């Protein structure tokens, strides 16, 4: 059973969003996502400064099985990417809620995201 952390918002494409006090958001992938991907061996993130639409590509994640795109759960501008992942992509497997992919500013579309309860409910339909 996948872990869904409280205090975050989620998308149906299995990203989590944490709202920070200054109005920016942190984005990462959920436990369900990291488990489905399997062992992650490479992360290629879109650069800071890039404007991204909701559901636009945010990063490519390569696992032993396949290369998958991580979609942005919100619209906004990438403010910062997590450079630690370049050398240690396995952090997304080890602690998916403790390791973020990017911080976004000028964020729109938060209202379309799921609460932890709603996301957990959604996950049960996928089992």
């Amino acid at each position: 059973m996948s872990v869904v952390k409280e205090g975050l918002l989620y998308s149906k494409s299995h990203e989590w969003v944490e709202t920070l006090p200054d109005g920016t958001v942190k984005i990462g992938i959920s436990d369900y996502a990291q488990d489905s991907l399997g062992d992650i061996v490479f992360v290629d993130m879109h650069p800071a400064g890039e404007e991204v639409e909701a559901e636009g590509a945010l990063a490519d994640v390569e696992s032993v099985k396949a290369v998958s795109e991580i979609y942005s759960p919100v619209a906004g501008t990438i403010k910062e990417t997590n450079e630690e992942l370049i050398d240690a992509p396995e952090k997304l497997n080890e602690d998916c809620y403790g390791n973020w992919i990017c911080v976004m500013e000028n964020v729109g579309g938060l209202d379309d995201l799921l609460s932890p309860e709603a996301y957990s409910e959604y996950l049960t339909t996928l089992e």
Partner: protein
Amino acid sequence: MSQLIFERGTQGHRGVALPKLQVPAYTLKTKLRAEKPQLPSVSELEVVRHYTECSQRVKGVDHVFYPLGSCTMKYNPKVNEDAANLEGFTAIHPLAPEEDVQGCLEVVATLEKYLTQITGMDAFCFQPAAGAHGEFSGLMTIRNYLKRHHEDQRTVVFVPDSAHGTNPASAVMAGFTVRQIPSNAEGNVDVEALRAMADETTAALMLTNPNTLGLFEKDILEITKIIHDAGGLVYYDGANLNAIMGIARPGDMGFDVVHLNLHKTFSTPHGGGGPGSGPIGVKRHLIPYLPSPRIENGRIHEDCPESLGRMKMFYGNFGVMVRALTYVMILGKEGLRRTSQVAVLNARYLEHELSRNYDMAIDQPCMHEFVMTLKRQHHDLGVSAMDIAKGMIDRGIHPPTMYFPLIVEEALMVEPTETEPKAVLDEAVRVLSELLDLATSDPQALQACPTTTPVGRIDEVQAARHPILRWQKGNE
């Protein structure tokens, strides 16, 4: 692991006996190399033993059943090699004048004629060296066509979510933006979703038919019409042509551009043993925009003003064309149709037999290949598609394609091809059933496979995260 060639040998051993020097020895004054090349000192016999040992480790279709889905690893008849080794084909030079290579040009023209008949297209270009190169060349042809028709705003290429990974990659390389089309519950293109997406920015749709789930796109005429009505072109990935030769033609389905894989469907060597060949076929209105030079009427035409230009040196992998033509001429029209019929029959038989134990991704009779899912076993027993594949190696079968298409969890994609007899298929069913029993009774034993190979289960995560790509002396 046995030794590499660089680790073998004894100082002073050599494979050749050079005649005594008959001119004064001369030492080059400039040193182009800082240190000695460290070539192995080995005798001819040591070299032969080394490479013979290497060759015995390889598993090809000449050794074992090789049901690698979507790759069409059919047997390559040896008569193809006889034809390709005829002196008239091997003793030519790529820069020879046209009048000296008329026979070779006739081979190209004849193969072009047959392939246009098989696919329903109007012309072929044989430059592309493999399937993905064919895709790229085909998309560049489309881009060239759009540009010359002042349709630069058409920048979007649609690719289904079940497509080969090369499709979106080729589209991006050709300068297009990729948009993914969802599949419906039956595994086919979601026609209404496509209709809603097609507009004045649509450049092309790329499709395989049968698709990667081994299903024939029944709505294909509607699909190609939607794209044509929007002003776009439709591209056929010929990866799965082996299912429909002599029965249905991409040209009749409305496709404008196709690529074929001579190394799949037309029985020429495949994979590391290549080279491959991925000729592209087009409808009449696209002929001027193909790569150049064009071969027509025994002439090599360099002067093609609207062509996108050259995609490869000379004119493709000619030796592969000779093999493919041999295959087509020996089988003929009826033989090619029978090939596809038996390829589908073999796949359906295997699917039917395996469905007693294995879950199929889609509950529909397949064409030339089918996809199983180990999702249930992964969930219940903790064994994966990878474990089953590794177990097959120990039991003398090359694994099927794994984890593809991406829309199926724990996928195993099986394509037996027409060249396997029923006894081999029955043995595969027995092996796969046995592996599933093992998955239930002793999952650890399955997860330890393969145990009969020179190298056991490879740590793929470690290999991907920290690859060592080059052997270094003293670091064995």
